[in-house]
């Protein structure tokens, strides 16, 4: 067949009308068929894609839900991590205090008596483990975990050393004023302050703990009473010698319940809070001296982290 072959399509109407003739080339017919086939093919492909998209859309809510769950789990983990970080911080501070105590009597360390200053890092309780911003990714979290576990290992070693040390030094531990002698409001801390009488800046060598008149005061460590009596502006004063160069002093007492020369144990009631001497209200002036040097009593108190 040549491309010029053609058909004639004759349309004969029923009634009195002209017969219509249409000349159709055969090529046209093939072209039309090809066009229809193409359209149908495209249609099939699109339909197939449509159905696959529809089925994926069904999965979407499930995925979203899973995503939410994962996010909240991540938040929980982050929180736990923060918690672990805080705990480690406390352990570190505790460790520092214990180390401070060991320095009291360890000539091998060749260090001055008395505790070292706390690291500012640990002191404000805000270190790199705790700060966490939302949107921190897993890599950051993993990094933190590494740091924490390294820190935990270090602490464990440190505490093991200390444990070994303290096993040899039970009497030292009993001699350290490691508990509060009384509970109350700390109205004046150790350090430089304005004198309540003269408003001059002076060194305050102890802690002022205020409470009700007559509140009991206990020995914060084992020791021997070396002074029980009056001492000028401090009113009724009690001094306990705990050995290892450690002495604790209590001022402004209303009553002293032990005598010089008496042995006392940690927790024994030794005195009562009062307002004697140069004092503006019932409180105890509590001092810790190591080899004669006044130290911050808080550095030795282990029941406060």
């Amino acid at each position, binding site marked *: 067949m040549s491309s010029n072959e053609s058909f004639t399509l004759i349309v004969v109407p029923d009634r009195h009308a002209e017969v219509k003739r249409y000349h159709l080339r055969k090529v046209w017919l093939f072209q039309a068929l090809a066009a229809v086939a193409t359209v149908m093919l495209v249609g099939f492909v699109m339909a197939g894609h449509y159905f696959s998209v529809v089925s994926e859309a069904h999965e979407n809510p499930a995925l979203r839900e899973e995503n939410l769950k994962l996010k909240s789990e991540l938040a929980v983990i982050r929180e736990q991590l923060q918690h672990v970080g805080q705990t480690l911080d406390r352990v570190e501070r505790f460790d520092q205090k214990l180390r401070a105590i060991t320095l009291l009597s360890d000539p091998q360390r060749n260090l*001055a008596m*008395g505790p070292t200053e706390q690291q500012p890092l640990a002191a404000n309780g805000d270190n790199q483990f705790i700060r966490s911003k939302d949107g921190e990714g897993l890599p950051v979290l993993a990094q933190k975990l590494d740091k924490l576990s390294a820190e935990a290992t270090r602490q464990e070693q440190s505490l093991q050393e200390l444990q070994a040390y303290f096993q040899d030094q039970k009497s030292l531990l009993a001699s350290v004023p490691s508990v509060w002698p009384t509970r109350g409001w700390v109205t004046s801390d150790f350090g430089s302050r304005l004198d309540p009488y003269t408003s001059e800046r002076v060194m305050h060598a102890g802690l002022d703990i205020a409470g009700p008149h007559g509140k009991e005061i206990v020995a914060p460590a084992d020791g*021997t009473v*070396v*002074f*029980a*009596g*009056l*001492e*000028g502006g401090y*009113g*009724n004063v009690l*001094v306990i010698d705990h050995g290892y160069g450690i002495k604790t002093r209590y001022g402004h007492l209303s009553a002293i319940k032990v*005598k*010089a*020369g008496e042995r006392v144990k940690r927790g024994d009631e030794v005195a009562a809070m009062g307002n*004697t001497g140069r004092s503006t209200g019932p409180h105890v002036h509590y001092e810790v001296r190591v*080899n*004669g*040097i*006044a130290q911050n009593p808080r550095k030795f108190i282990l029941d406060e982290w």
Partner: protein
Amino acid sequence: MSAGLTDVGRKRNHNEDSYLIDEELQLYVVADGMGGHAGGGTASRIAVETIDQQMRGAKKAPEDPFGPETPLQDSPLPEFLRTAVEKACAAIFKTAQEDPRLAGMGTTVITLCIKGENALFAHVGDSRAYLVRGDLIQQVSEDHSLVNEQIKAGMITPEEAKHSRYKNIITRSVGFEEEVQVDVMGLVALPGDFFVLCSDGLANLVEDKEIREIVSNHSLKDAPRKLIELANERGGDDNITVIVATMVAA
């Protein structure tokens, strides 16, 4: 009951210490004078005399501090002792102003007054009061000395203080200025307690626990002599004065 003794030591040629034992008042004073050839001895002598006069005067005054026994806390004696030392200070200062040869003199003062079971102290300088009770010996007074300030500031250790070239420098003295800040202390004595008052001539050469041993193991009468002998054996660098007193059983 008490016993006291003073000795020039091995290095000095005259004794500038003075002491007072007034058994009627149970008043005991040790004063260690300083300044000039004649000044030190004069200052310590004026101190003990003035304190004795003041306390004897107080006994005759209407508010007699030697009257009825009071609890330690309410005892009026510390304030009388304080006033007596302040008067001594003014008297020494005045004498020094009047005589240029005595200018700049001053003295330490450690005073003990026993009343009933109360033992009361007034204190300026580096002479010391100790309580000896059984195995315990405790310094009741706190030295007003440069080395003690250095110890408290953490600059030197108590061990270093013993060999410090500044150990004779005191931060307060009676009579060097017109007024002085006096420390007062008090404690409740028990039967068998001993009180030792001494000048630094003893305290610098004899350890606390040696003082305790000698006082516990010798009669009251012998103890001061034994202590002074020990200090002299070790060089006797300064005048040595010791009073040992004990509570009279009621």
